[in-house]
């Protein structure tokens, strides 16, 4: 026992962890982890059991084991593609060197890799697209929400528009956005791909509404006392917004932002699928079209990846909220 206890002493002999404390901690951790762990194990078993009994025209429905294999093959594919990319650049450099050796004034350049986008490239594209669209939406929605919350008149005039557009499926916007982007975004050296802008703006359109509405609610429900304080101190309106309105409305603003990001992420996948814009949605659609025997497994990997990414995006927003919210005691979930 003393030996075990010694482990928890530092070199000066000070006790870092009493064994009894450690047991308590482990018990606590066990409780916190045991249930989710059990849930996941039961889910995986059910999944495998059900999958074994479903035969589709593309073969057996993939269970967790096959999906694990598919994910490994996706990683392998990614690595192979990177090697091909390196070889591609090497070939270009050799060719350019040869050209320069013959004619030192020759115009040489390195062209970007022309190979396919792997699963992981598609994940990055999707993440980049959703953050761009979400950022644009937030920049519009938060000020608009604050204005609606502060002024009853603004609210009255904007509300019907919000209520009309809120229930529109963003996919209904997609054809319009596609046509508008190709009509309006004309440049010889475009900074963004058209397909990227189409997806991003579609995301923006559906990210707007939850943030606007929640911000409005947050701003209208500020504690009367705080408003009175602001009145008594005769704070100028910008200061009023900065030091009273925003801090009080932060929880609701974040509720809106989290809702927005979640819908944005869902919509993006659908938009990419429909418009064949690069990203995870396109990956899924391509696999569906391929109809090979491991298509289902690969789609399942993508589904899980989408879920996990959506989950982490939400956690990320929660962490940001925890950082900037003044009320550190508030329970966030």
């Amino acid at each position: 026992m003393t030996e075990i206890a010694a482990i928890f002493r530092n070199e000066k002999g000070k006790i870092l962890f009493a064994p009894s404390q450690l047991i308590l901690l482990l018990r606590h951790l066990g409780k916190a982890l045991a249930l989710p762990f059990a849930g996941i194990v039961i889910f995986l078993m059910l999944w495998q059991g059900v999958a074994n009994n479903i035969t589709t025209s593309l073969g057996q429905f993939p269970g967790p084991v096959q999906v694990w294999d598919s994910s490994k093959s996706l990683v392998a594919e990614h690595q192979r593609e990177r090697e091909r990319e390196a070889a591609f650049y090497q070939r270009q450099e050799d060719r350019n060197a040869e050209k320069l050796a013959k004619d030192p004034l020759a115009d040489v350049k390195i062209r970007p890799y022309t190979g396919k986008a792997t699963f992981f490239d598609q994940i990055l594209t999707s993440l980049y697209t959703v953050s761009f669209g979400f950022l644009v939406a937030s920049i519009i929605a938060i000020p608009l929400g604050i204005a609606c919350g502060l002024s009853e008149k603004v609210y009255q005039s904007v509300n019907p528009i919000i209520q009309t557009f809120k229930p529109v499926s963003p996919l209904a916007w997609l054809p319009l956005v596609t046509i508008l982007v190709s009509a309006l975004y004309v440049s010889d050296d475009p900074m963004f791909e058209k397909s990227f802008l189409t997806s991003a703006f579609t995301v923006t359109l559906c990210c707007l509404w939850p943030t606007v509405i929640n911000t409005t609610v947050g701003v209208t429900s500020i504690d009367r006392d705080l408003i009175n304080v602001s009145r008594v101190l005769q704070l100028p309106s910008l200061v009023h917004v900065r030091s009273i309105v925003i801090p009080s409305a932060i929880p609701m603003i974040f509720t809106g932002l989290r809702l927005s990001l979640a819908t944005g992420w869902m919509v993006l996948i659908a938009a990419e699928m429909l418009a064949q814009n690069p990203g995870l949605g396109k990956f899924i659609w391509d696999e569906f079209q391929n109809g090979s025997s491991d298509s289902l497994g690969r789609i399942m990997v993508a589904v899980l990846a989408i879920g996990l990414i959506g989950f982490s995006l939400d956690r990320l927003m929660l962490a940001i909220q925890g950082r900037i919210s003044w009320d550190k005691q508030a329970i966030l979930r």
Partner: protein
Amino acid sequence: MNAVQRLQKAQKKPSLIKIALAVCGLTLTTFGHAEVGAPEKDELKFGFIKLTDMAPIAVAYEKGYFEDEGLYVTVEAQANWKVLLDGVIDGKLDGAHMLAGQPLAATIGFGTKADIVTPFSMDLNGNGITVSNEIWEMMKEHVPMENGKPVHPIKADYLKPVVEKFRAEGKPFKMGMVFPVSTHNYELRYWLAAGGIHPGYYAPHKGDTSGLLNAEALLSVTPPPQMPATLEAGTIYGYCVGEPWNQQAVFKGIGVPVITDYEIWKNNPEKVFGMTKEFTEKYPNTTIHIVKALLRAAKWLDENNNANRPEAVKILSRPEYVGADYDVIANSMTGTFEYEKGDKREVPDFNVFFRYFATYPYYSDAVWYLTQMRRWGQISEKKPDQWYFDMAKQVYRPDIYAIAAKELIADGVMSAADFPDLDKESGFRAPQSEFIDGVTYDGTQPNAYLEKLTIGLKDETL
């Protein structure tokens, strides 16, 4: 003096050929491809639809033929033929694997109007007609048998009683094809009409582009890769599509391919490589380099009696290209075709990429497609023969092909025997009579040909 003139001159004076070749050889070793200048545009994006006949593009990329020509090509799968065509028209794509009918229809203004040209035919044959298991069971009663196996080719005559039964019950008999101006639409129509089933007329001048006027079998559009799923869902009872989507139906056990297009019209022209006319004029060297790379790829695909096909299948089965399983693609690409499950037969010419001058853009091929557009009303009124020739010459560009071919001969990569006589070729094939209904097609007499077809428009306007 540019490369064309020089080569033409070299051809006219046979005694100079050797000298010219030697000069070319010399310049080759010192300056690379100095005859046709470096490509004006070297970063290109090509579109394709997930079908095995896109193989020349995949092979040209994977075997480095594009890079050999100084081209850096990105290859991208497209959702359907409409998206692909729009991509080429508005410049998102520099070129694409296209249905032979697409450049023609775009030029005459059926659908989106645009000047699309083709300097390169991608393949011959490669399609099939599949019906669902249910329809096959009903058809089978009428199909003649030999040694317990159906006698091929299976004509639509045996489908007719099934269609009639459906019609008597008031149920529409629906079939799928991939695009209104697709080879598949015309082949399916040809097969149905040869068996006495009316596939319906188009009447674009009345705003009717559904192609269902007077139809006994109703044809609708479904993108190729979705064909098996649509058949399985029961939305359509059969379809005409390129590979691997007929073999996919056999593997999935959801349908039975009844006939290949090789049996409907032996060695019929299929896909082409389409680009805008503007592109070929703005980047003439690039265009020639593209055709050269594709020609090398096509030759590789057919070389040594299809010896490279297994490797090609491996490339095509990768998810970024066709992506179907190796076995499914291999079935048709390696010279066999599986009809009913287990009934695998030899069809060595199911996919032809280079043999029989498959890559040469014959005017007569273009004229045949135009006659079919007229036959089914996509061209609303009768046109003089000359109109057919003019349109064919606007779209099909053997001139560009000839420059690329001569370059390859000069480079020593290919020989003159690989091509038709480039200087004497009229662009019209000799009359062809290997159609399922035995009607002879002579590309120089489009109107006379239309007269010979029983079902279909002749002089009248609907």
